[in-house]
């Protein structure tokens, strides 16, 4: 890049932005390695005294493994079902012509705009009636409500981008609809499926309101709820909270770093309708 004043301003602002973006993480890592007593006493940007007590306490005393396990199961199962059901729906919406298609798309879009708070109480009562409060299905079912529209929307956008004439050629070559779906479309849609899966998984992993409302105790709480409800004996255990935040964030950060191009493609395929 040339050293024009314009570029310097750009570059400078970008650096500031990067620092702003990364600072909270940096600070969380530093704090999680600092003894509790020193946390609010004359904080400095550079760690002086590193300890791992908080991380140890996280897994020994607090059993942080359980919320992680719960989040994995709930997010994973939801994503799995949403992908299967969503792919079928997306195929129909992207490739087939039938009346009411526009209405369905509008409906799906509308549901993504629902405020979750509006359906919390009936869902709570429904789940309670089915004895599903504080269980895995009790979270997976509501999660599908909100993950499904997202999945269908992004997948439909992605399938639309696969050229139609490939399947037409397959039809002319003698493939039935199912064969052209499994042999031609599906292999080409695998990247989109992966991306949509990642997006859906992240969405489920981060969900808070339902997890908060539909679980009762540490046995079934997910990571966001567990972290938010950390209670200390006498005071808020910031050291452990931040250690938990780091633990919760690190895998996500890695995933994003690895899949960033995919994620960007997926988000824009669904979001920007040319």
């Amino acid at each position: 890049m040339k050293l024009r004043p314009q570029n310097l301003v750009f570059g400078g602002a970008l650096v500031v932005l990067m620092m702003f973006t990364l600072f909270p993480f940096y600070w969380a890592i530093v704090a999680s390695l600092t003894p509790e007593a020193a946390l609010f006493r004359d904080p400095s940007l550079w760690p002086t005294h590193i300890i791992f007590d908080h991380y140890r306490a996280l897994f020994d005393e607090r059993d942080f493994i359980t919320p992680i396990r719960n989040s994995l199961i709930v997010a994973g199962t939801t994503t799995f079902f949403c992908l299967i059901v969503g792919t079928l729906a997306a195929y129909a919406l992207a490739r087939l012509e039938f009346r009411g298609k526009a209405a369905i798309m509008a409906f799906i879009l509308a549901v993504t705009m629902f405020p979750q708070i509006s359906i919390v109480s009936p869902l709570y009562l429904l789940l309670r009636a089915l004895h599903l409060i504080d269980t895995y299905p009790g979270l997976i079912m509501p999660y599908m409500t909100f993950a499904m529209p997202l999945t269908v929307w992004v997948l439909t956008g992605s399938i639309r981008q696969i050229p139609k004439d490939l399947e037409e050629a397959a039809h002319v070559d003698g493939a039935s609809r199912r064969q052209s779906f499994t042999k031609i479309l599906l292999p080409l849609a695998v990247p989109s499926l992966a991306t949509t899966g990642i997006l859906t998984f992240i969405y489920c992993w981060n969900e808070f309101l339902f997890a908060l409302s539909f679980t009762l105790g540490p046995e079934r709480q997910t990571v966001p709820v567990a972290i938010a409800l950390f209670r200390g004996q006498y005071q808020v255990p910031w050291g452990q909270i931040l250690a938990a935040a780091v633990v919760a964030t690190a895998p996500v950060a890695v995933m994003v770093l690895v899949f960033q191009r995919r994620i960007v493609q997926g988000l824009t395929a669904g979001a920007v309708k040319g």
Partner: protein
Amino acid sequence: MARIALDHVDKTYPNGYVAARDLSLEIADGELLVLVGPSGSGKSTVLRMMAGLEQVTAGAIRIGERDVTELPPQQRDIAMVFQNYALYPHMTVRENLGFGLMMRKQPRDVINRRVDAVAASLGLDALLDRKPAQLSGGQRQRVALGRAIAREPLAFLFDEPLSNLDAQLRVETRVELARLHRKLGATMVYVTHDQSEALTLGDRIAILKEGVLQQVATPMELYEHPGNKFVAGFIGSPSMNFFDGALTRTGAGGMCTFRGADLTIRVPCEPATSERVFLGVRPQHLEVVGETAVGEGSLSAEVGVVEPMGNEQIVYLTVPSGGRVVAVAPVQPRIVPGEKVSVRVRPEGLHIFDAQTGKRIGK
């Protein structure tokens, strides 16, 4: 191989757009028929209806002796070469070539033998294990062709297969296709918007305009006896010149006089009264003749632009009434822009079209 017949086919889209209107067409077994027309003429739609990729609103389509109107593409046993080739990107060339056979549940060794034979005939043997992304445009085109040939279908459908190739490759491939047709003796329907491609390839040509069939005939017939003004102007390059004017009978003897703004000429015609007509003359039938006097059968004009084509000159002239006329002249003498010339109309190159209907009048 089989014949294809379209019987009073209509195609109207749900939004009201009419792509094909009462189309009836017979393609003989082993014939190469070219469907040609400007964009929006419906030619691709007609091809896709033959393939079963578009549904017919009314009418019937027969392939061989079967009525296929309601059959999906899978059951019609035709092969199609798409404009963008539509090669399966995740499969190798070999798998692409063999896909149709695999769909028809042919045994593995039969498929392999057939694929090898087709690949050899198209010069693709070295590329069998590559994926389409690793091929050049011309190679991809051959794979698309090979995929169709390997199937040994009842008929081949081509949807503007050459339009993505550069000019030179286009000419070479055109020749290849003609050769292929002779070799296989296959029924082929070929869609293009390029009239010169149509003229060189087709046994017969069907010209479409806005969904309506204008004329179906051999290239020569279309060139020499176009059925209406549209066909006359579409076929032949540079396109035919049209002069509008009136036709009046001149005594007995079956001759009329055409009187236009810039040209008066005797024309053999049917007994008819003064009608408004278009007189069509191909550029090849106009002689640029220095600055001699202008009389009956000639126009005076001023030379605008001259395009030297190596073997001839294409001369763009302006006539006094303000219109443009194109003539083709031999290489010598050199014609100079700005020259005032007289252009003689050769009597054997006259076509007359009714001004209102566009239909050809007379022989």
